[in-house]
């Protein structure tokens, strides 16, 4: 059974993790977020968020729509500039000039960020070259990725003509082509066929088994339960809960605030509040 509680402050959370060695696992910290805040005018999308994630973990980052998940990933990947706070990846501070650091991370961003007028192999080759792969490796990995992703038959289609699931596969392939040390995935499984999802999950498990780190957002809580080691739930930009979920797959439960939750969904709904509404006309 995992006992966890909402941190009184994110500072406390960080200090606790550092003292405990991140849930008892003494691994170097892959991702460190300290007092991250991101505002848009009067809207605070991420509010004083602090987290540290050790290497070799598959980390699920959850929250309701508009909670600040994608904003957090945006800040972690250099897409957005934090309004305040500090981000450290693999021990190096993330700055606009951190090109060498960016080569060590792979990103599947919100909206996928594909170039719709390129062919899949052109897009993957573009990414591979930008991340410093030589021509021979680029060619080899692109062919291999297209083959295993089942995209070879769509070689003559531009990405703009791909289905949503195929586009996700291409974005995933682009994120991993340079074999990054940290992988940021924003809702990676939605719209992909079940066989494709199973393959991606298997890759992710092997990815973290090799000592690398995955930071992932998704709304599919069952997937998180079975796949992730650690989970954080945010609500309105603030950390609402952080803990391990591995025991749920073995029939265990999460204890929080004096209650036991047998599923992540139950805990999630408890934390973010259930949405209820009656449509009498339906």
């Amino acid at each position, binding site marked *: 059974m995992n006992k966890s509680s909402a941190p009184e402050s994110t500072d406390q959370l960080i200090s606790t993790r550092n003292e405990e060695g991140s849930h008892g696992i003494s691994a170097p910290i892959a991702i460190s977020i300290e007092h991250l805040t991101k505002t848009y005018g009067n809207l605070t999308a991420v509010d004083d968020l602090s987290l540290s994630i050790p290497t070799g973990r598959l980390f699920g980052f959850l929250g309701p729509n508009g909670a600040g998940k994608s904003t957090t990933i945006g800040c972690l*990947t250099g*897409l957005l500039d934090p309004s305040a706070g500090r981000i450290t990846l693999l021990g190096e501070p993330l700055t606009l000039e951190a090109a060498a650091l960016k080569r060590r991370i792979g*990103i599947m961003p919100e909206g996928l960020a594909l170039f719709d007028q390129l062919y899949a192999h052109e897009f993957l080759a573009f990414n591979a070259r*930008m991340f410093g792969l030589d021509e021979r490796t680029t060619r080899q990995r692109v062919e291999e990725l297209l083959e295993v992703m089942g995209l070879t038959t769509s070689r003559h289609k531009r990405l703009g003509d791909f289905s949503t699931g195929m586009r996700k596969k291409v974005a995933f392939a682009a994120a991993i082509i340079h074999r990054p040390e940290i992988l940021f995935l924003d809702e990676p499984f939605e719209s992909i066929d079940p066989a494709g999802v199973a393959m991606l999950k298997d890759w992710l498990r092997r990815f973290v088994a090799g000592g690398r780190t995955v930071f992932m957002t998704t709304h599919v809580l069952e997937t998180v339960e079975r796949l992730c080691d650690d989970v954080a739930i945010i609500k309105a930009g603030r950390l609402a809960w952080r803990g391990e979920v591995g025991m749920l797959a073995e029939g265990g439960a999460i204890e929080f605030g004096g209650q036991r939750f047998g599923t992540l969904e139950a805990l999630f709904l408890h934390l973010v509040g259930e949405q209820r509404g009656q449509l009498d006309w339906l």
Partner: protein
Amino acid sequence: MRSNFSHLLWALVRLRYRLLWAQARTSSGRIAILLMVYLLVMLVFLFFSLGGFGAAMVGVKLGRGEAIARGVLTSLFVWGIMISVVFGVGPRAAFSDVVLRRYPLTAIGRLTARHLIGLLDPVWFLLVASAIGLAIGFAVLGAGSVFVGLPAALLFIAVSYLATVLLLSLIDRTMQSGTGATVLSAVAFGLLSFSGLAISWLLDPRHVAWLQAVDRVLRFTPPGVAATLLAGSMTAAGAVSAVLLIGWCAALLAALGALERRPPASPSATSAATGWDSFYDRLAGLFGQSYAPLVGKALRYYLRCNRVRFGLVTAPIFAFLGRMMGHGDPKENFLMTLALFSFVGFAGTTAIALNQFGYDGAGIRRYAILPAPFAATLRASSFTALLIGGLMIAPTVVLWALVSGVTVEPRMIVMLLSSGVAGLFFFNALGLWTTVLSPKSVDFRSVLGNQLSVGGNIVIIGGFALVFAAAFTLIRRASFETVLAYWWVLPLLAVLCFGFYALMLQSAGKAAEARREPLIETIAGAGAH
């Protein structure tokens, strides 16, 4: 059921206007508001002078009512087509047959909805006001009947709309095919090059017989038959004209129906540039290891964009325009060509060079996550525009030397080349800033309408005004010999423009880094966070 249909139709028309208003509220839409105000003023002007009573009064007083009505209606007809091509008026993608299928509409219902929405586009009000004004004018002055004129005016509007939509549809489909840009460019090239010459040839008193022949043909065109109905009553000739106008309407409707039943060719299905050592990558390799992938991507976007292809194929037209604008005078010919040549290297690439991220859509986010400065993408795309545009200059100079009709000397060649190079650097330098300060998300596949941002329009309009002001000043104040004696000014200007470009490359790059988030939000859409 009919009530439901009319409700749905009304809701779609309102949606069309809401979308127009939403676009007008954006920064790039403000120029549209300015243009609409201009059009409104023109509408009032047309209604009270040329289009309405004024034209009718002039026509009746001169005893040439039908001829004047024919002239006005022909102008309106051509104007309607031209403004639709420029502004992309007509049935929109947002109200295409495919999109309308989500609503409970039959095939006929969708067809009606699409064209009613297109016909109720604000720009058509100008034509409606002018044509109805003309009809009422003739009726009030006793030269026509309101019962014949008004239906004829409305039918004329319908025919104008159908002809425009048919032409736009043809252009759209032609551009989607592999050779479409070339075919259309050849047609546009021919029209632009020779229509002006043909008109001036026809207006020459020596060719009056030809002019009369053309006038006879024009009587059977939609404006011609509508003019007969507007300026006369229901005589035998009027009845024939009415049948002809209805015939035009039916023929255009049938042609449009036949065209729409044919599925459009998929552009990507016909493209198969899948080789690894492609032309794009070899060319991009010239820019070094760090820029090569970005230039390779930019090259693909530039050369796959129909607007750019069209621009590149039509750029050599500048070699001919100077001669047309020079009125046969070698000095005017050369100076106008000199002014025009400053656009040769830039004209083809304007669609992207003035708004480099505009066609990337959500892809713009990728630039921010790549292990390269955001400004590097701006520079790479600008280098690509320089490369493509630069390749256009020398061949166009050679073409000019062959067709100019003036005695070509080496100083002229140097001046023209320098003008091209100066313009290439100068306008691309401005393009860096319009990209950063006036970005606009645009549809890569759209081939119609003015898709430039406010900043892009200012650069184009201001650029033309600037170089032609310089050319006209030289034409008035300097002799040909003086202009040629100062030939070295232009190479110097090219060097200065290069320096200006280098400076802008640095400063606009910094601005792009600073404005990265708003740029991404504008191009990729709100919700980038």
